[in-house]
Each structure stands twice: as C-alpha cells, then as structure tokens.
C-alpha cells in the first residue's frame, strides 16, 4: 500500500512517514502541491494525505484540482484549522476524511486503514471488519475460518446496513428502515431480538455493540 503525503512542515512530515512506515505502508512525502501531479503521473497511490496549509497552492485547491480531473484517489485532509466551514468545504470538494492537528499517530493510521479498506472494498464489492468478510454482491458473510454464516433475511439486512457504516453508530430507526418493507411494522424490541441473534452468529469474527439510547455499532471482536 502506497501513500502520498503532502505536508510542508518537515517535523510533521518526517514523523508521519516514520509512523506509517512502521505500520507497513510505503510513504512518499512532498512539500508542496505543485509536486503532486508529477508523482501521480508515474506512480500508483492508494491514498493521499494532504495538509491544508501548504505554501503556494493550498490543500483545498489541490483537492479541487484532483477531483475536477476525475482522480478517484482517496484523500485524507489534515489541518490545523478546526473551523466547521473548512471541514465542510474540504468534504464538499471531494476529500474523503478530515483530521485536525494535533492528532495521534495511531488515529492517523486507523483513518488511513479505513479509507484504503473502503476503497478496495468498494472495488471488490466486499467489506471486511475484523475477521468478518461481507460479500455484498453474493449477499453472504464469511467468518474467520471462511465459513458462510447462516443468516435470515432480516439478520442479513441488519449486518449489511451496519457494515455499510462500519465504525459508526447506526440508529435503531435506520435499522428498522433497512429490514422492513413499505407495509411492515416492526418494534424496537424486535430489532433487539434480531441483533442479539446476529451477534451470536457472528461469534468471534466481529461484534455488534449496543450504544445506550443511540443504536448499534459493528466492531472488530
């Protein structure tokens, strides 16, 4: 997995490079936006980490330029600006995620992992969480040992919905909408029953955590 890092501060750039290399990535660091096009032309990258406050052409403009040219490269923005306007701006322009400085390296590594996994999963039409592999096209889930889980239609719908928002809390209402047709009516208790059955079927591959008052989150076991 190859990551392009666009960061002008050498202290930060060096630390991120070292940190990500330790996590098993190949990292190419450049100090300004002008150098990006050349790199992208002759190398395939799985992800770019872009600092917003670059000298010369700034990060937002780089994001805009890449997306206008149709480049689908996953983009993770890091910035010292924490204003909501900047965040919305960056995401609107086509960035995939946003991290505010100062951050911890494990957090950065986790975001990178999630973005790359999302991109490859979208290509393979497959989502992996922990030891669980969810084959969206085949509508089946495989556990750590590669066995296909026996799920009811509703359990599958719940898992699919949770997997699409993996790492995020999904509300009961959303799950209800995911498993019911137009005419069916289902209570919150019924959701709980389906979730607890799903949980036992997932075994140690992954787990569904209930968040009091909010909903459920699919997590690594």
């Amino acid at each position: 997995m190859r990551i392009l890092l666009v960061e002008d501060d050498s202290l930060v750039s060096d630390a991120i490079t070292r940190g990500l290399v330790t996590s098993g990535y190949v990292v190419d660091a450049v100090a300004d936006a002008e150098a990006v096009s050349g790199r992208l032309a002759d190398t395939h990258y799985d992800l770019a980490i872009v600092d917003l406050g670059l000298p010369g052409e700034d990060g937002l403009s780089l994001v805009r330029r890449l997306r206008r040219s149709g480049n689908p490269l996953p983009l993770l923005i890091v910035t010292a600006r924490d204003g909501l306007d900047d965040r919305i701006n960056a995401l609107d322009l086509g960035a995939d995620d946003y991290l505010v400085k100062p951050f911890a390296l494990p957090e950065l590594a986790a975001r990178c992992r999630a973005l790359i996994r999302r991109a490859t999963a979208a290509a393979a039409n497959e989502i992996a969480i922990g030891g669980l592999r969810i084959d969206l096209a085949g509508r089946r889930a495989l556990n750590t040992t590669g066995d296909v889980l026996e799920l009811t239609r509703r359990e599958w719908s719940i898992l699919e919905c949770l997997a699409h928002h993996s790492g995020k809390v999904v509300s009961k209402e959303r799950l209800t909408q995911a498993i019911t047709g137009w005419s069916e009516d289902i209570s919150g208790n019924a959701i709980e029953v389906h979730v607890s059955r799903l949980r036992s079927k997932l075994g140690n591959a992954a787990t569904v955590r209930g968040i009091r008052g909010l909903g459920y989150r699919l997590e690594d076991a």
Partner: protein
Amino acid sequence: MPERKRPISIHRRLLRYMLAPLLLLLVAGVAVDHSMIVSPIHSAFDRALSRAALAIVARIHRGPDGQLAMSSPEHPPPAPRPFANAEPLPPPPKSMHGEGPSPTLRGMGGDVFFYRVSLPDGRSLAGTPELPLAPPDDKAADGFSFADITFQGEVMRLASYRTVEDGEAVIVTVAETPARRDRAVHRMDVSFGLNDTVQMAAVLIIALIGIRISLRPLQRLSRQIANRPAQALTPLSTDEVPSEVRPVVESLNTLLGTVRNSVLSQQHFMANAAHQLRTPLTGLKAQLEVLGRETAGSPLEERIALLHGGVDRLAHTANQLLTLARAEPSAHRASHYTSIELPHLIGEVIESSLDRALAHGIDLGADCQHVQVTGVYWLLHELLINLIDNAIRHTPAGGHVTVRCGANDGQAFLEVDDSGTGIPAGERARVRERFYRGAGSTDDGCGLGLSIVDEVARVHGAQLSILDGSTGQGTRMRIDFPASS
C-alpha cells in the same frame, strides 16, 4: 438600592408637553365662549321682558271714571318668553286696582314675575306697588330702561317702559327672577364646554395618531435591530430612516464597522495562532510516538513516555485555549448561527468519545428527545465534548455517563449525568474559573474545560448549572437554553 431610571419616551414626552397647553387652551376657550354668549342671552331675555311690558300696556285703558285703569287682571300677563315671536294675547285682565295682596305671579319654569303700572307721580294703578322703577335711560329711544335689583330678598331683572297712553304718561314696570336666563346661560356654557372638550379630545387623538405614525420609522429601526442576531455586525439599512434619526444610525454603522474589523482581524489572528501552534505540536507528538516505538524496551522508553505526556498536555491546553478564545461572543458572525438538532449533535459527539469511554470501562449512552436550538454548531460541539470528557474523567470504571436532551416549557436543555465522584457544593462555583483544578484532580486536565462550557453557554444565552447526579452520586451538568432561541 439605586433607583432605576425610567427610559425617556418620545411618545410620553410629546404627550406631556402637549397636554398642559391643550388643557389651558380648553379653559380659555370655554371662558371666551361664556363671555360671548352671556350678552346675547341677556338681551334676548330683556326683549322678552319688554314684550311683557308691552302686553300690559295693551290692556291699559281709560275707565268710566276717567281714570286710567287695567282691564281684568284675573289672568296676569304672560310670563315673558324669549325667542318667541307670536305671543298669544292673554285674556283681558280684570281691574285689580286696590284689590287683595300684591300679586306675585308665577312665571315660566320657576321664575317669579312681578309687574306694576304707575304714573309719573308715583301712584300705582295696578300690580305690585312696592316694585321700584328702573331709572330712565336717556340713550334708549324706545322708552325702555333696565336695572338689576334686589326685591323681596331676590335678585331680579327690572324693565320699566315709559309711554303715553290716552294722552297720559304711564310707567309699566316688569320684573322677573333671573333663574331662566341663568339656566339658559348655564345650558349654553355646558354645551359649549362639551363642544370644546370634544374638539380638544379629537385634537389629542389626532396628535397621538400623528405621533405614532411619525415614530413608526423609529419602531421599524428598533425592530430591525431587535430581529438581528445579537452578533450581527452588518451595517443597518438607512433606507426609510427619517433624517432626524439618520445621524444615529450612521454613527451606529461606523461603530459596527469598527467592531467588525477588529473581529475579523482577531479571527485572522486566531487562525494563524492555531496553525502556528498546532503544526509543531503535531510534529513533536508524532516524533515522540515514533521514538517511543523505536526505543521500546530500552532505558529511554520511560523518559520518552514522560515527554510524550508533556507534549500531549501542551497540545490539549493549546487546543482548549484556542477554543476558549474563539468562543468569545464577539468572534461570531450571524452566519455562524444555525438551527441545530440536539439529538444529532449528541449522536455525533458520543460517537467521537465512545472509544475513550469504552477504554475507561464506562457505559456512555444517550436519552434524547427531539429538540432544536439556534447556535454555533462547532461551539456546542466543543461544549458537549468538554462535558463528556469531564464526566469520563471523573467517573470510575464500571460507571455510566448519560447525555440527555429535551424541552421543559419550550426551553431546550442538554444534560450530562455521570455516576462519578461528584463535585462538593463548595467547589461548584469555582470550577468554572479558568485554570481551576479541583483538589483531587490528578489527571491531565488543564482546568479550562468548564470555562469553555460556561463561555459557550453564555454566547448562546444559555445557563450552566452544576447539580447532583440523578442516581444520587456523581454530577449532572445541565445547560438550559433560552426559550425558543
């Protein structure tokens, strides 16, 4: 206690300054009206009195004894009626010369009426002989003269008519009490007074309406100002502002412009400061993390961990200071205020704090009712993060933290309830102070969290209360938003 001064009201002042002159004018008007009607009424009644005298003269004739006498006084002459043209002739009076007590005749409407027919030598032919005569008036060519007298204890109006009847001079004198003319004057006074009062009232009402209409641009202006968000710094519109108020609006706009510029430069400064602080901190933090991994197991590891902890605290403090500085009310433009669904905000903040809570072994959950507030999203986000952060920090493993929102009498509230160690009542006021850290705090907090919460609440016109936890232990931090903000 200092007395609160009542604000000056243009409306009230105009009214006060108009009311006194108008009342004076009313009194003067009634007085003028009175003086103008008194003399016409008096002359009308005098003319009526004259007609009564003439009617008596018509009944004087020379008797069989060659003496002048009055015919049949059985019916007295009619009481004089002013403003009556065709006066019906009373039946011929019988001679009453020397008969009975002097007749006191009842006139109309309670007036007492006397008459006397006398000769120039003072002999009375008929009527009340005691009735005095009005002194002759040389200016009057018609032989009438008038006088005001007091007769038998009553004020009376007297008219004497000197004429020649059958070649002999006679004086016919009539007198009446002035009750009817006084009543007439009184009636006229009342009706003029009423008329004047109604006119004044009408003037006053018209003036009030006029004042209200001319003050309307001012009210529009104050509405325009009132309806703006408190933080709006855009200039006020000078359209439709009356020329008298324009200088005020223009000064206000100049002031707003100055404030706007200083806010913008402050925001610019904060953005630069944030960047200049955060970037090297990120570098330091990341470098130390890498170094920590590389030196794992060596004697340096512990010292690097200490350094890392120090940089983390520094980063946290820098972040909190930046947040606090940016939470200053002057830093927010109206466009930053949006309608915020509290459950949505809570979901987002809990999601970002969930891993931290789970790492501390704390059950973090929510209990939300649908409710909206108007506010600055990222500020409320910071507020809630700080409240949850505090709660997690002060709650031992196995405890719970619950975020609630809802509405009480149309007032939205937001609550973070924990089962932690709680804050002693004596310390509750102090924990909002900047950099204050409770006696038992041993963690990496910088003492700015609740200052940020307090400041953000203040910016939103909301109130932070520190209460006991709902389970009887721990703390419940409650934010009450203003009604329908």
